């Protein structure tokens, strides 16, 4: 069609034929058609199309249409009479099953993944409980080594006065520090009643916020003195424009522990408190048994040395052996001593923090410095945030992408299929 430089657009010819033009325009187009062959032939084609379409007649509507409409209107139901032509959903065909099963499998997978991660995260702290495993191992070890327990019973008979227990031992010895008692010789440690009373090493952790730091510090010292405890380590921090704080690792005799803790709590507001205990009875009993054996061996070796005569080589060999056994005994004694010390002295991790009051008179940085610092901090924060986003995307991005692929692909395929079929209607 030669539209270029043509006064009447071909669509206007069509609109003219359809009677869609205003009278003035219609007149113009009509006049144009009289002397433009191209437009006239277009008009003929358009008319011809309409005429051929008109041959597409439709059979008359069913005569009972009105009755059935009224009947249905009265019934107030929708399509009750013609279920066949609306094509009932055939619920049991495989395609529906496939879609349903796919959905169900996905849901189950998601639930399993979720529950598994929950269980996993619950399991970890449970594995770290020491007490139960300690007691269990004690039971099995006890039955496996009858000679050890026999020996322990014999020891207990000897030491009938001491009615067992770590706490009682310290009390009956009436000495706060174990060194003096242990230094008494092998007899004292060998007589340590290990069974049946449990030996427990205790650890307490306390975080206390105090109002008056100096007073709290003083009363901490007096508490330690009163309960015959000592500070294994102590760090006090006094910074400007910040609350003062104190971090200490205290050792308090086990029988005094409860009283000392109660007093420590009165220093201020307790923010956090945790206590734990570890049973070391079996460990200690094992150590005692091994020590006993080594001592007996030493005795025998000494007897050999004094009673028998032999070559100088043999004598030297026996002396060497005695020295080795002596070394073992001393090592074990040291271990035993450390263990007993841990039992006798509970460990308290104390953190004292002052309730901070900002003082008005404190010298502060100049305004320009503060502005500059804030700007630098802002830049730093911004870069950290961007870095965080990037890291987050790197770390957590792939998993959603996988899920998107797993779930999105079937959905995409189904939608595409639906679209294709719909285009046919």
């Amino acid at each position, binding site marked *: 069609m030669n539209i270029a430089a043509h006064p009447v657009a*071909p*669509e206007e010819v*069509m*609109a003219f034929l*359809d009677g*869609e033009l205003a009278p003035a325009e219609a007149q113009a187009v009509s006049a144009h058609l009289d002397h433009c062959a191209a437009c006239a032939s277009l008009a003929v*084609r*358009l008319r*011809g*199309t*309409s*005429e*051929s*379409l*008109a*041959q*597409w*007649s*439709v*059979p*008359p*509507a*069913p005569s009972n*249409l*009105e009755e*059935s*409409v009224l009947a*249905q*209107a009265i019934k107030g139901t*929708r*399509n009750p009479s*013609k279920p066949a*032509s*609306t*094509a009932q*959903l*055939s619920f049991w*065909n*495989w*395609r*529906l099953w496939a*879609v349903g099963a796919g959905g169900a499998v996905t849901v189950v997978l998601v639930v399993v993944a979720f529950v598994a991660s929950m269980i996993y995260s619950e399991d970890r702290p449970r594995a770290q409980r020491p007490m139960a495993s300690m007691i269990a191992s004690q039971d099995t070890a006890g039955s496996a080594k009858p000679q050890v327990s026999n020996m322990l019973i014999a020891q207990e008979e000897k030491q009938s006065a001491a009615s067992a227990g770590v706490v009682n031992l310290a009390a009956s010895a009436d000495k706060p520090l174990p060194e003096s008692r242990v230094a008494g010789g092998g007899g004292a440690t060998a007589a340590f009643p290990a069974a049946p009373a449990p030996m427990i090493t205790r650890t307490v952790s306390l975080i206390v916020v105090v109002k008056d730091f100096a007073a709290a510090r003083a009363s901490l010292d007096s508490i330690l003195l009163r309960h015959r405890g000592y500070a294994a380590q102590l760090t006090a921090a006094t910074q400007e424009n910040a609350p003062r704080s104190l971090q200490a690792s205290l050792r308090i005799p086990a029988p005094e522990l409860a009283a000392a803790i109660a007093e420590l709590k009165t220093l201020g507001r307790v923010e956090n408190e945790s206590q734990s205990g570890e049973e070391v009875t079996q460990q200690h009993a094992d150590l005692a048994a091994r020590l006993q054996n080594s001592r007996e061996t030493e005795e025998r070796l000494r007897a050999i040395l004094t009673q028998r005569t032999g070559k100088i080589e043999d004598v030297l060999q026996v002396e060497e052996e005695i020295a080795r056994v002596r070394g073992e005994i001393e090592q074990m004694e040291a271990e035993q001593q450390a263990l007993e010390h841990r039992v006798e002295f509970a460990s308290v991790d104390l953190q004292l923090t002052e309730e901070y009051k900002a003082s008005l008179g404190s010298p502060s940085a100049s305004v320009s410095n503060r502005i500059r610092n804030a700007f630098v901090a802002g830049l730093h924060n911004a870069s950290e945030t961007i870095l965080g986003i990037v890291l987050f995307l790197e770390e957590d991005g792939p998993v959603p992408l996988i899920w998107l692929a797993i779930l999105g692909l079937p959905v995409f395929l*189904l939608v595409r*299929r*639906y679209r*294709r*079929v*719909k*285009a*046919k*209607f």
Partner: protein
Amino acid sequence: MSDAPRGSAPDSSQAPQSDEELMIAFSRGQTDAFSALFTRYKQPLFGFFRRRVANPAQAEELTQETFLALLRAASRYQQSALFRTYLYAIGFKILSAYRRKAAFRAAFLSEQPPGHEPAIDNAIETQALMRQAVGKLERLDREVLLLREFEQLSYAEIAGLLGLPLNTVRSRLFRARLALHDLLAAPASHSSAHGFAQSKERL
């Protein structure tokens, strides 16, 4: 030429009232007004569905459904447009709902999509050809063409019904008519049809 009633003016031979007046009368409770409307629009509406849906029984059912919807909505009727536009708008909604459902069933429930029905009546073979030719047009072109040729709607009414700008209606109608002309002129040779390849791609 068409089975649409000639306009909505009260110059139709038997009925003194316009469609709109009848509908308002019906919405006020005059049931015979509905009968009159039904008589006027039974055949056009049936034709509307019959030309768009291959299955005759389905077309009948959709016609029924449209009239039922009209009955139910009668109390809310307000004369904002011509009655026939209103009626065809309802028809269109029902038709697209049917198409959605049928497409869903065909896509996921392995039900057969409605093919073009076999030419039951040899006398109307031309109609089967016509249906085939129209079916080859692009969907929106086809809709515009059918609304213009058979429902006799004005360009503005078509634009309102399909939610298209008036110019789009005009250009699509023009394109559809020329394409159909070519399709009908040379139904055998596929390649000669103007715009046919394009419309086939979209189908």
